[in-house]
């Protein structure tokens, strides 16, 4: 091939790769084009493209051409070996000594395949995401143009892979979130229906048991048993009220309020419980008084729920820190409630806002689910950071609302 026709063929390969990149419906198509066209343009025997699976930390074959089944059936390559030799991510590695190169995992199989020389090009954007290996049946020299060509293809290919990976991860995050929301609302509806039906039988139980408990000999086992029935039935009532509260359409009744006042009021309500457990509250309330439209009662409920969770998480003499920050620049109110308690395990973290999920013996599993709904209805955000053994940090953000027009429907 003359140098001008070679140049033309490189150009065609690049054009095909870029065209595929821009019209991608699936990544596989691009990868197949990259291996076949690159291998063809370089008069190679074949090529292999591996992508690093970040979850398993293994390089997985994603596209190949010109290589025998037996060679392809060889086991996975050692990730460590590949990564340790990828010190320069934009460098083309030319392997001439198949038998002694540390990068060659299966020299015998490679030799049997008729391969006498290989070229490795890392696929990387800041960090390695894959590798293209090109196989040749005889040793030869590579011109600067050829090396440039390989680098350019690799660069484009890496961009596509990264873009697709970002898209896929966003998509999976979104569908997870959508499924979560769906689950929340259907659970809520179901809860309301069940709650309603259960209150009738409970009414029978409570009326008869409370009435009977006065007719049995005082101080006996019968009286004790009946009183337990009365108490437990009343507990069911409380749980069901929580369920109904959760399922209710909570439209915020907004008014202009000062976030610090709400926090002080919430702290006042839980004060006694904190005092009993010798848990200290450190307050860092922003002095900037910017009144915002919030539903005072609902937001107070959120704070109480989180404060009580924090109290539950800390040992006696633990510390719970509350902080409010008025962010005038971003027009947001930022509230942080953190503790130095037991923290939340990663498994529990995933389910923490699910209704009925609780790690407390007597928990209804509705506190945080309700809180999540309230913050959502205020167009706010709730974030959670936790490390087992170190503590938990809840961050809530409410946007400033200039008027009371949003969420006024419930008023």
């Amino acid at each position, binding site marked *: 091939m003359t140098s001008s026709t070679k140049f033309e063929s490189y150009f065609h390969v690049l054009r095909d790769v870029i065209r595929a990149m821009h019209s991608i419906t699936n990544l596989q198509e691009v990868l197949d084009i990259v291996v076949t066209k690159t291998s063809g343009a370089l008069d190679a025997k074949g090529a292999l493209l591996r992508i690093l699976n970040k979850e398993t930390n293994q390089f997985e074959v994603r596209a190949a051409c010109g290589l025998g089944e037996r060679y392809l059936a060889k086991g996975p390559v050692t990730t460590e070996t590949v990564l340790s030799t990828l010190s320069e991510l934009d460098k083309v590695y030319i392997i001439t000594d198949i038998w002694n190169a540390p990068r060659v995992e299966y020299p015998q199989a490679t030799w049997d395949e008729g391969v006498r020389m290989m070229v490795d090009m890392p696929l990387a954007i800041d960090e390695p995401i894959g590798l293209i290996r090109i196989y040749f049946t005889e040793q030869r020299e590579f011109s600067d143009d050829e090396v440039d060509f390989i680098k350019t293809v690799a660069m484009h290919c890496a961009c596509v892979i990264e873009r697709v990976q970002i898209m896929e991860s966003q998509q999976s995050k979104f569908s997870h979130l959508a499924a979560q929301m769906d689950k929340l609302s259907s659970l809520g509806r179901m809860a309301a229906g069940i709650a309603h039906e259960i209150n*009738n039988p409970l*009414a029978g139980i409570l009326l008869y048991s409370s009435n009977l408990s006065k007719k049995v000999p005082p101080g006996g086992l019968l009286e004790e048993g009946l009183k337990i029935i009365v108490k437990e039935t009343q507990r069911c009532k409380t749980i069901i009220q929580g369920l109904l509260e959760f399922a209710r359409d909570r439209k915020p009744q907004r008014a202009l309020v000062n976030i610090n006042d709400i926090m002080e009021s919430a702290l006042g309500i839980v004060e006694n419980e904190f005092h009993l457990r010798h848990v200290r509250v450190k307050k860092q309330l922003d002095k900037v008084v910017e009144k915002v439209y919030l539903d005072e009662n609902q937001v107070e409920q959120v704070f109480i729920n989180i404060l009580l969770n924090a109290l539950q998480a800390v040992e006696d003499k633990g510390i719970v820190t509350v902080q409010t920050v008025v962010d005038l620049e971003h027009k947001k109110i930022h509230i942080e409630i953190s503790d130095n308690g037991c923290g939340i395990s990663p498994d529990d973290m995933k389910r923490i806002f699910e209704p009925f999920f609780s790690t407390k013996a007597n928990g209804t599993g509705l506190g945080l689910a309700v809180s999540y709904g309230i913050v959502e209805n205020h167009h706010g955000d709730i974030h959670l950071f936790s490390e087992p053994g170190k503590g938990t940090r809840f961050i809530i953000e409410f946007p400033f609302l200039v008027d009371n027009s949003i969420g006024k429907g419930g008023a």
Partner: protein
Amino acid sequence: MKSLKVLVIDDESVICGACDLVLTEKGHTVDYCKTGKTGLIAIERGTYDVILLDMKLPDIDGMEVLKSVREKMPAPYMIVMTGYSTMSNAVQAMKLGAADYLSKPFTDDELIEAVEKACAQQ
């Protein structure tokens, strides 16, 4: 305590029976109906001091019963019972003339207190 004539309107036999037991023991007389329509007929015919009315009835809505009873003179003392204890429900029932509100489940004492408040009102 004056003996009161009480009518319970609820489709659940257990609740009717329980209210009957608790109130009869306190010296009141209790009748009960299991539908809204029979309840309205009973109210029309009888002279009840207190009506215990369930909000969820098989034929007509408790709110409808309240509206019909409101026009009756003299209006009996209406206590609304419901398993769906939300504030807006209570407020709506009160607006329609209910005097009190019991959210299911309730204890015998709560029932007696609510019913006997009727005496104080009359």
